């Protein structure tokens, strides 16, 4: 991604959105090049938030890492550890007890409810519709409280651990969980109706910053962003984990791809999440909650989980020691954010801001070093393109070494099938 470039013929203005801007909770620098109110070009500068989590992870023990990756992003704080844990569990080859599976499902789905309601509120706030903001956050509050009740914290839950859950949710609390999610159902319905019926909201959301089906595939977006563009991908269904194949729920998709569709996907997914939580509570068996993993054997594995924003992907490699030797994280916003270029250019500034919010970006997830510089001279050693080419070369080398088919051949037909 380029640094600040010049205005063309003095006709363009840079409208800097960030790094500190009320629109976003995290430091990111969006460069909106505008002519009048129209955004003619966009660029993104990240890395303000780069905290070196992957490197830090290799200095923590396997049991400590979940606490660290919980803090990749506060709103996905149950899914990042879960993805990591699934990777480690794959290395260990252990089987998670059913009760733990159900309990993990409960927490991730409760988090999804709170995250989606949070998004609805923030979207309202970004549109200047503070009443929606206040109402949505008010209705989200019981979820926060029940999360605190069952995990001990409002935000970072530290609920899952390798081989199970850290703390068993006692059966007595199950009724509270049902009551909390039930209390959300009515308000969410009301919010959904309000969003669907309000003509002014329609004027602001429908046909705004449309991400077409093709662009959604081209930019490899995930989660609600993809599902709102008619790409029905959801890790929970495509590669079920925990209890998601044991309960009954639907993947919500809408074909339009505009901001309205994204709002609808999130609102309807909230209902699905409530359904899942209630089924999980109903079906949760008694028994062990921990498989008792002692040590992690050498090996490598991936784990991926559907976060509220999309697919969270973790790769872990172990050499049999106490710490992972490599831990690679790809958070959903990292693939969702660049789709701005497809959906936002040519839109109004006002639309672009709500469109940015519409992918529910979590910039904390996106932190990468995009440019490698010599620390002494400040000269660029490698730019983003070279780095990408390097990684492609390396993948090819790995494929050759391991004697597996190239990625396109392996996954190409399946992808086509899936997307069709």
């Amino acid at each position, binding site marked *: 991604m380029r640094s600040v470039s010049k205005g063309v013929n003095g006709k363009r203005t840079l409208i800097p959105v960030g790094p500190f801007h009320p629109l976003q909770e*995290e430091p990111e620098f969006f460069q909106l090049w505008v002519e009048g109110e129209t955004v003619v070009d966009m660029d993104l500068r990240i890395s303000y938030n780069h905290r070196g989590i992957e490197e830090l992870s290799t200095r923590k023990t396997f049991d400590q890492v979940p606490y660290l990756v919980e803090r990749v992003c506060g709103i996905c704080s149950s899914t990042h550890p879960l993805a990591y844990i699934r990777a480690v569990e794959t290395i260990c080859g252990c089987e998670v007890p059913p009760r733990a599976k159900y309990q993990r499902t409960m927490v991730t789905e409760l988090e999804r409810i709170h995250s989606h309601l949070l998004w609805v509120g923030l979207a309202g706030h970004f549109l200047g519709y503070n009443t929606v903001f206040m109402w949505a956050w008010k209705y989200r509050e019981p979820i926060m409280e029940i999360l605190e009740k069952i995990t001990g914290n409002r*935000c970072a839950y530290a609920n899952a651990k390798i081989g199970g859950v850290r703390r068993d949710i006692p059966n007595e609390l199950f009724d509270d969980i049902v009551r909390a999610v039930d209390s959300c159902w009515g308000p969410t319905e009301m919010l959904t109706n309000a969003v669907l019926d309000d003509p002014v909201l329609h004027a602001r959301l429908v046909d705004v910053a449309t991400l077409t089906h093709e662009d959604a595939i081209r930019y490899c977006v995930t989660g609600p962003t993809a599902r709102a563009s008619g790409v029905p991908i959801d890790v929970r269904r495509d590669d079920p984990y925990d209890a998601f194949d044991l309960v009954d729920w639907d993947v919500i998709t809408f074909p339009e791809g505009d901001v309205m569709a994204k709002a609808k996907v999130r609102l309807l997914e909230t209902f699905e999440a409530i359904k899942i939580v209630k089924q999980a509570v109903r079906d949760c068996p008694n028994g062990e909650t921990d498989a008792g993993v002692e040590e992690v054997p050498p090996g490598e594995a991936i784990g991926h989980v559907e976060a509220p924003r999309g697919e969270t992907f973790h790769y872990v490699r172990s050499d049999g020691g106490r710490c992972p030797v490599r831990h690679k994280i790809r958070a959903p916003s990292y693939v969702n954010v660049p789709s701005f270029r497809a959906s936002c250019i040519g839109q109004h500034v006002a639309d672009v801001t709500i469109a940015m919010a519409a992918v529910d970006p979590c910039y904390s997830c996106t932190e990468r070093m995009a440019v490698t510089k010599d620390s002494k001279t400040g000269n660029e050693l490698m730019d983003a393109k070279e780095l990408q080419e390097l990684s492609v070369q390396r993948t090819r080398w790995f494929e050759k070494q391991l004697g597996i088919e190239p990625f396109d051949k392996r996954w190409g037909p399946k992808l086509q099938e899936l997307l069709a």
Partner: protein
Amino acid sequence: MNWKFWSLKKSLFVYHVNAGACNNCDIEILELLTPAYDVERFGIILVGSPRHADVLLVTGVCTRQVKKRLQELYLQTAKPCVVMCIGACALAQGIFAEAYHVGPCVDEVIREVDPNAIIAYVPGCPPKPEAMIMAVVKTWQKLDELAAAEPKPVAPALPEVAGA
């Protein structure tokens, strides 16, 4: 009682700066505005520009990238202003203390440009909203002390020019 400090206590405009946080603190800050906590009762509102702000809520470890920008932002804020470090990261870098990409602590960064800055700390990961309200109350007490210690200037050492 000095009217400047009295009114400052009664009306705190807050600007929120994320200096490399994980969002937990940030959503809890927003939570403060919502019906559950409603800090507007105390005259606290969130504003869109640091020029209007009386309080800079800094969350997150101050990464090396952010350091310079945070200082710049502090200089751009109208004084007197209180810097409130929210969360373990902003206090003492929390879990990220050993990371390679983290700059100095937030208070060190601010003190570098203004040694007399008023800095409040709210521990927790993330701190509960109640804790943040408590921090505001403690800040009020600090402001009372400062008001008693007038005419000591609150924010000297900043470039000042005469004339308009």
